């Protein structure tokens, strides 16, 4: 695609701006900011990736992955700041997920150990893990808040903190992972996944595109379940002290 053709795609930005102005929706400023930011961010990433791919240096790959984990942690921590030490819990979770998935992919030679594969797959894994983390934390803090009586009841009857928080933990893990599992059931029927569509448009063999998409889907399944479980088991102990007393969430 030439830059001239690319600039023609701005028609798709003009349509919502004109509609917003005509109907006085007040979305013009946000639409413009979003457009400018996406152009700058994506072009910057494109040039950085080009450089990293050409350099083919492990240090650059590690720095890119670390940057992704840092940004994901920064973004997700706002949703869980009522849980003590949430920043390092998220960071450890994202690092673990990245190490786990890349070890399987590279260890079994499923993908070649080149930046062209490692970086985009890491982006999808960490991005998905971040969304799952946010979903989990949202639900978990709401469950803990609304079921304090139940937690207290189990403690008074001689239950452990793990038993006192069990229902809230399981409910939150399930509810945050269900969307990932459900969306896989209809994939290909309702919509073609972005990565697969991109490959097909770029001229790849559709069957090979599907194979890669399946790899990503299965990877994201592990990511979803491991993120929720790991965050859950790292988070719940901070709700109790050594005397097994329930501490309220930070306000």
């Amino acid at each position: 695609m030439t830059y001239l053709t690319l600039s023609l795609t701005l028609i798709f930005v003009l349509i919502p701006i004109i509609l917003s102005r005509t109907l006085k929706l007040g979305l013009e400023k946000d639409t413009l900011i979003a457009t400018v930011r996406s152009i700058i961010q994506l072009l910057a990433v494109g040039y950085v990736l080009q450089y990293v791919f050409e350099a083919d240096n492990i240090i650059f790959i590690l720095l890119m992955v670390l940057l992704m984990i840092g940004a994901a942690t920064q973004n997700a921590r706002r949703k869980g700041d009522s849980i003590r030490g949430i920043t390092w819990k998220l960071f450890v979770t994202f690092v673990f997920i990245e190490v786990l998935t890349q070890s399987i992919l590279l260890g079994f030679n499923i993908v070649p150990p080149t930046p062209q594969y490692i970086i985009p797959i890491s982006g999808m894994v960490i991005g998905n893990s971040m969304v799952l983390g946010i979903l989990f934390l949202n639900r978990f803090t709401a469950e803990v808040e609304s079921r304090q009586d139940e937690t207290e009841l189990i403690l008074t009857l001689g239950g452990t903190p793990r038993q006192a928080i069990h229902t809230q933990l399981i409910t939150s893990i399930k509810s945050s992972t269900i969307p990932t599992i459900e969306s896989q059931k209809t994939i290909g029927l309702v919509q073609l996944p972005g990565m697969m569509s991109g490959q097909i448009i770029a001229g790849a063999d559709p069957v090979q595109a599907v194979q890669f998409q399946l790899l990503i889907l299965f990877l994201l399944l592990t990511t979803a379940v491991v993120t929720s479980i790991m965050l859950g088991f790292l988070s719940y102990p901070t709700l109790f002290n050594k005397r097994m007393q329930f501490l309220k969430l930070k306000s």
Partner: protein
Amino acid sequence: MNQAAIIFQDVNYSAEGLHIIKNITGFFPEGKITTLVGPSGAGKSTLFKLCNGLHSPDSGEILIKGKPIDTYNPIELRRRVGIALQSATMIKGSVLENLELPLTLQEKTIDKEYAEELLHDVGLAGDFLKRNAMDLSGGQKQKLSIARTLVNKPDILLLDEITSSLDRVSQHDIEELIEKINKKYGTTMIWITHNLEQALRIGHFTWVMMNGELIESGESSILENPQDERVKQFVKGEIE
């Protein structure tokens, strides 16, 4: 002098910037029923949570059966010092699942006959076992909550306003049950109540708390002839 089941020595407790329990020194006699009365916000329920280890004092010491409370394993302590809370919280599931909960937490199950006997003791029919606990009335939940607390066979039983949502007949049944358990097993009972007649009728001893302080304590007859001016006003119903 009676032996003490629980002793408070200069106990203070604060939460969210509020000084809730102020320099409390006193004791609850072993094997007796002590009623705990006082206006709302006096710190009575917080005192219970201190006895059950749900909270720890900021200063001072609590002795349970002569041993400092923090030397107990929290789980063992909570099984020995049972508490039936005013909220009578139920978990999702049947009456049986709720009644069995203290044992489920220890990976044990309840004997059906024992479950029916417990329900009978609190005035609920045995066929309640299969019913959904969430469908019970406030009074029935309260009775089930008491039965559930008894499953752990506690040495000390803390009862927080357990008859406030019951009708007169049920109130009487529960009072009889508590007296029966007290006599049969020698269980130490501490009972928070708003009903001063009940406090006088049931309690061998009484504590009067106000604004986080222990104002008067002694045999329940102190409610008939209080010494402190504030207690006099409270007994007359001038302080709610």
